[in-house]
């Protein structure tokens, strides 16, 4: 069994510095969902001097468009979407204090450089584990762009959401080191 570390949001530098690629963590606190459309709106807002719909400093964004919640549920299935589509937008948000991104799939070199430069972490949520991940969500509130439906920004209260550290501040990349280790 792997050793698992518990972390909470907002993420402090001390926590970020301690995390290494390949570790499993359980995250608790608030995280914010945003994917393609919301990110475009964030960047558009910033470019005209407007504020983001929430204070991004030390926060974590989750690239996720959940399925509809059935009656009595907080959220539907909520696994990650492919992160690379948000690569264009991530470095700017990291420069403004974003401390964590949760998604799946490789990031571009500029995102990895920004993770190192601004001290942030890229976490992987297990793709396709939408039901499991929904169990960690204890509250869900749409806070911006409601008209985008699944792509709206949601403030999720999470408890012990299981994640893997993919990119740490030391330049390690689990996708690279993992594949090299097991390639035959």
């Amino acid at each position, binding site marked *: 069994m792997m050793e698992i570390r518990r972390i909470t949001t907002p993420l402090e530098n001390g926590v970020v510095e301690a995390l290494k690629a390949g570790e499993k963590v359980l995250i608790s606190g608030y995280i914010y969902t945003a994917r393609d459309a919301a990110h475009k709106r964030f960047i558009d807002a910033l470019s005209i001097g407007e504020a983001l719909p929430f204070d991004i400093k030390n926060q974590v964004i989750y690239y996720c468009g959940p399925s509809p919640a059935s009656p009595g549920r907080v959220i539907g299935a909520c696994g990650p979407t492919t992160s690379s589509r948000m690569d264009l937008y991530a470095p700017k948000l990291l420069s403004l204090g974003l401390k964590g991104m949760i998604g799946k799939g490789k990031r571009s070199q500029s995102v990895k450089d920004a993770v190192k430069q601004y001290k942030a972490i890229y976490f*992987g949520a297990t793709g396709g584990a939408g039901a499991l991940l929904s169990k960690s969500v204890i509250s869900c509130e749409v806070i911006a762009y409601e008209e985008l439906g699944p792509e709206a920004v949601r403030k999720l209260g999470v408890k012990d959401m299981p994640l893997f550290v993919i990119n740490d501040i030391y330049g390690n990349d689990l*996708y690279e080191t993992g594949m090299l*280790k097991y390639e035959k």
Partner: protein
Amino acid sequence: MREIHVDDIVAAIEGLFIDANINLSDSVFEALNSAIGKEESPVGKEVLRELIKNANIAKEEHIPICQDTGLAVTFLEIGQDVHIHGGSLIDAVNEGVRRAYKNGYLRKSCCDPFSRKNTGDNTPAIIHTSIVPGDRIKIVALPKGGGSENYGEVRMLVPSQGREGVKSFVLEMVKKGGPNPCPPIIVGIGIGGNFETSALLSKEALMVPIGRRNENPSIAELELEILNDINKTGVGPQGYGGTVTALDVHVKMMPCHIASLPVAVNIQCHAHRIKEVTI
């Protein structure tokens, strides 16, 4: 002539797509469990455990296994002695999908290719029909997510590329996909036919039960060679590195033009959702 009313088709389709999205079949559970034993990476083993836990939660609580509840890929084998009445077959399939995605709280993931405007009800379904002997209709529902589908390809190889050319092509697609199609994957390979039938063969290959080999021993050997090669790439569960990148590989082959070697690769993620019924 056996009469089948479209209402029965609507109901069957609705049931199948909800069932497929919530209840992972025993064969996939078994394959994931067996993969834990074969996987050498501790992170890989942990991911596989999460996938099994996920499928159990989905089954127990009636929530979708994955939030990408896919496009509604539907195969209908229609007995030539069946008479469908009460409306259009295609409309009935689409109505069944519409109801499944509404009543089953499934995500609507179908949109216009350019404007990207969502169609709102996950239709039109992707419908494949064939006419077979008999008086039944066999319906197979295969909700197919976008992540894995995006790493498929059809390629018209040169005949001299042969068996090795096919292997290289498949490996190329698996490495290109890496973590993105959500490994551990299942690979469907269609060889022969022509441009469009090789693609269809590759999707039908995904419907072959896990663990079943092609009846032709030489092709069965090819399936295992490719599976072995894929598992040597080191991609592993979720691409975090490991020795189980694919759960299985299936090949379907048919004769092709003397000048061609059409090959199609269709990738399926670990959420291999497939249910069938015969009415």
